């Protein structure tokens, strides 16, 4: 009750400041509003997370709901402009931090022995989801717009299928961290997610290039893009490794103000990731997620003892950044798209969940190894968030003049919204059922 009152009081305070500022005609500048929004989102998300935790729901769902409530869809304390522009840094920061955490969790010795198995699980799941969701999308596009050319429908369906195959590294890491979970499900979920994410970089770039070449006669498909994608992937890992070595040096030699150093490093990684450069005539940019992942991996595996204080800071800093990131993600949710295409979105959600279950179950059998107790592993791959939303933006950006792209985008946004809101609940259930919650403190990794 007290937490609820506190949460309501904070929301009320935000609304009051907003209204008084409008009424008094206080000079409107984006900087102060951004600062206020950050503070409000972090505190409200934290309280909402605690509230949901009391009723045995994931804290992340609380963060998302607060974003939805304060965002442009509901109370509009956080405006669309802020979500799209001024609060973008929260996403950049969170992606780098999440990947650093993930890299720090990976034990290279274990990964070397498991890489084939993990690749099989990831590969089978991606293929099954891609085919089934892509097929369903093709059907929906044909039904809703009979005039849509077949090639266009195939390209769009293939892209929707691929986006559906992605899952959220952010949610996986945040849920494992929140529940201090350790065990086969947590470890496999994290590793497969990372393998999938690396594959997604290559596959999505390839598919978008091929698709654009097929539907847009003015765009010639060039084989050089494969080289560019390779450079992007390898370059990200190498540059990330260098970052990791430099960060380890700072931690060992200077070792002061680690929280500020962490935030600065994450922002630097995000900045390098944003810079585009040309390889063989193709515009590419390094992946912030892969760079940070590689940096975390290098630090943890090459200097495990000396970088320990840094990872303690990463752990402590995670909560405020998760609160902000997921609240901003919640504010981004396009509920209207979900409502408008509720029936079609519902069909896609059912198909995707069935495909994820089938893909993971099949992958576990084909991949071999001990599958006991991993029956609920598939629930880890249901949540979707930032990666999927970023891919949707890319589709919209590259194919915005293609007929049918709006429908495909709405389907994806609706599907991601459902999986973002409900996915963490399922994953929490899987972690609870597997008995892995709270095991991290016992040193199991």
């Amino acid at each position, binding site marked *: 009750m007290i*937490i609820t009152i*506190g949460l309501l*009081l*904070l929301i009320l*305070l935000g609304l*009051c*400041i*907003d209204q*008084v*500022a409008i009424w*008094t*005609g*206080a*000079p409107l*500048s*984006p*900087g*102060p*509003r*951004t*600062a*206020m*929004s*950050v*503070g*409000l989102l*972090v*505190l409200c998300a*934290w309280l909402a997370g*605690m509230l949901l935790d009391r009723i045995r729901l994931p804290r992340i769902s609380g963060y998302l709901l607060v974003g939805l409530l304060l965002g442009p869809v509901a109370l509009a304390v956080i405006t669309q402009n802020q979500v799209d522009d*001024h609060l973008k*840094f929260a996403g*950049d920061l969170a992606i780098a931090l999440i990947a650093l955490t993930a890299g720090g969790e990976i034990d290279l010795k274990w990964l070397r022995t498991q890489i084939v198995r993990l690749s099989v699980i990831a590969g089978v799941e991606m293929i099954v989801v891609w085919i089934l969701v892509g097929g369903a999308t093709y059907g929906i596009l044909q039904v809703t717009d009979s005039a849509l050319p077949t090639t266009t429908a195939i390209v769009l369906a293939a892209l929707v299928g691929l986006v559906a195959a992605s899952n959220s590294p952010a949610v996986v890491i945040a849920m494992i961290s929140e529940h201090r979970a350790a065990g086969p499900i947590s470890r496999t979920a994290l590793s497969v997610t990372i393998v999938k994410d690396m594959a997604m970089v290559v596959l999505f770039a390839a598919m978008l290039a091929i698709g654009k070449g097929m539907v847009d006669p003015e765009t010639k498909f060039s084989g050089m893009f494969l080289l560019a994608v390779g450079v992007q992937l390898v370059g990200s890992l190498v540059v990330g490794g260098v970052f990791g070595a430099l960060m380890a040096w700072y931690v060992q030699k*200077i*070792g*002061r*103000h680690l*929280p*500020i*150093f962490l*935030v*600065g490093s994450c*922002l*630097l990684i*995000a*900045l390098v990731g*944003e810079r585009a450069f040309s390889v063989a005539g193709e515009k590419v940019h390094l992946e912030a997620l892969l760079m940070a992942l590689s940096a975390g991996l290098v630090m943890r595996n090459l200097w495990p003892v000396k970088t320990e204080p840094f990872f303690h800071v990463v*752990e*402590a*800093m*995670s*909560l*405020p950044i998760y*609160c902000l990131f997921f609240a901003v993600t919640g504010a981004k949710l396009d509920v209207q798209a979900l409502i408008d295409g509720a029936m079609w979105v519902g069909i896609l959600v059912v198909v995707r969940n069935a495909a994820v279950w089938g893909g993971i179950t099949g992958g576990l059998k084909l991949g071999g190894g001990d599958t006991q107790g991993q029956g609920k592993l598939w629930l880890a791959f249901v949540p979707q968030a930032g990666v999927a939303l970023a891919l949707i933006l890319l589709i919209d950006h590259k194919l915005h003049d293609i007929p049918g792209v709006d429908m495909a985008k709405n389907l994806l946004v609706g599907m991601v919204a459902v999986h973002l809101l409900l996915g963490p609940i399922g994953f929490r259930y899987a972690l609870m059922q597997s008995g892995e919650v709270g095991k991290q403190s016992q040193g199991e990794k």
Partner: protein
Amino acid sequence: MRILIGLIIVVTLALVVSGRQWWSLRRTPIGAALTTGGWLAVAIGLLLGPHVSGVVQRDQLLTLQPLVLFCLGWVGLMVGLQAHRRLPQMLPGSTSRLALLDAGVSVVVFSAMALGVIWLLSDEFNWQWYEQLMVAPLLGACAIGWAPEVRSLRQVGTADTPLRGLLRGASGVGSILAAVCYGLVFAGAQLDHGADNVVVLLLIGGVMSVAIALVLGLMTWWLMRIAGRSDAEFLVVLLGTVTLMAGGAAVLGYSPLFVSLLGGAVLANMPGEVLTRFRRVIIDAEQPIAMVLMLVAGILADPMIGQTGAVLVVVLVVARMVFKRLITHRQVNAHAGPVQLNSPLRRAPMRQSPLAIALAAGYVMLMPPTDAVRYVDAGQLMMVVILVGLICDAVPWLSSVAIKALREDANPAGGDA
């Protein structure tokens, strides 16, 4: 992209200048004067800024507003946490009296002098009263108090503890008074002076500022209790409340530093042990936060201060040398004890408080572009405050070096020990 570039430059440099090696510079007198005053950070900022190398452009700076707000909120909270209800009893009466006397005289004298210079050197006379009042009281607020650092002015072998205590105590109280004064100046400057109900708007905003500070101060205390011993939850409360206090105040057009100060004062007077850790973390991060503000100040400063700016610097420096000595003369003599008459410690009040740079940076950074300060441009205003601080810092230090050299010449074998 731009926000990231700006943030990274500022954060990296702040880390470098607050690093261990940099910190070790404080062991020497000149190092103490340079690092504690933050002049090296200001110089780096100046070199990076739009007026010198142009690495950081003016529009990039605007994207740093949230970071500057956060730093101002942090500083305000740090100052406010000193304002415990028992502070007047804890401090000797002489300290409070000195701080109050200094604040009152500084605001009146320095504001009047700044106003006089701007008035005399302005070619146009059709300006409104509030346009003059935008710059002058700000310079008055910046003149309150002095730098708390006394290490660089200490004489080896002299027992100057009572005087050091007085100077440091009065400097702390002076910071609170400067932030309060700045809050009023900031609020006045942000108002739409053409509106009919200026006084009503000022009152409403003032009440809202106090209300935000009160609500968030109480809420921070309560949230701290909920967070318990968890480091992560503690960080959530700390970061969330500082940004909300500072951002909320700035959205309403009120000083983020002042509102955070009030919030800090509310917190300081709450019962329980939960604030011990809060206070420790706030003070631990003082160095990087101060360095960010110093860097931003350097970036904002325009070295071409013009005739008005140059005269302002001279007048304010001379005024500081004369008036601070007059204001503090009696109290300093009463507390000097064994301190010699020519001790550099006696000249400590001449040095400008580092808070003045934060006040000016916050003012310049958050001023709406349409209300750009006339006659003294925003960048020039920043430079004036920096130069006054730098010159006033250098004079006592140079005099202490000169005295030491003279003594060594007079007594080459024994030194001054």
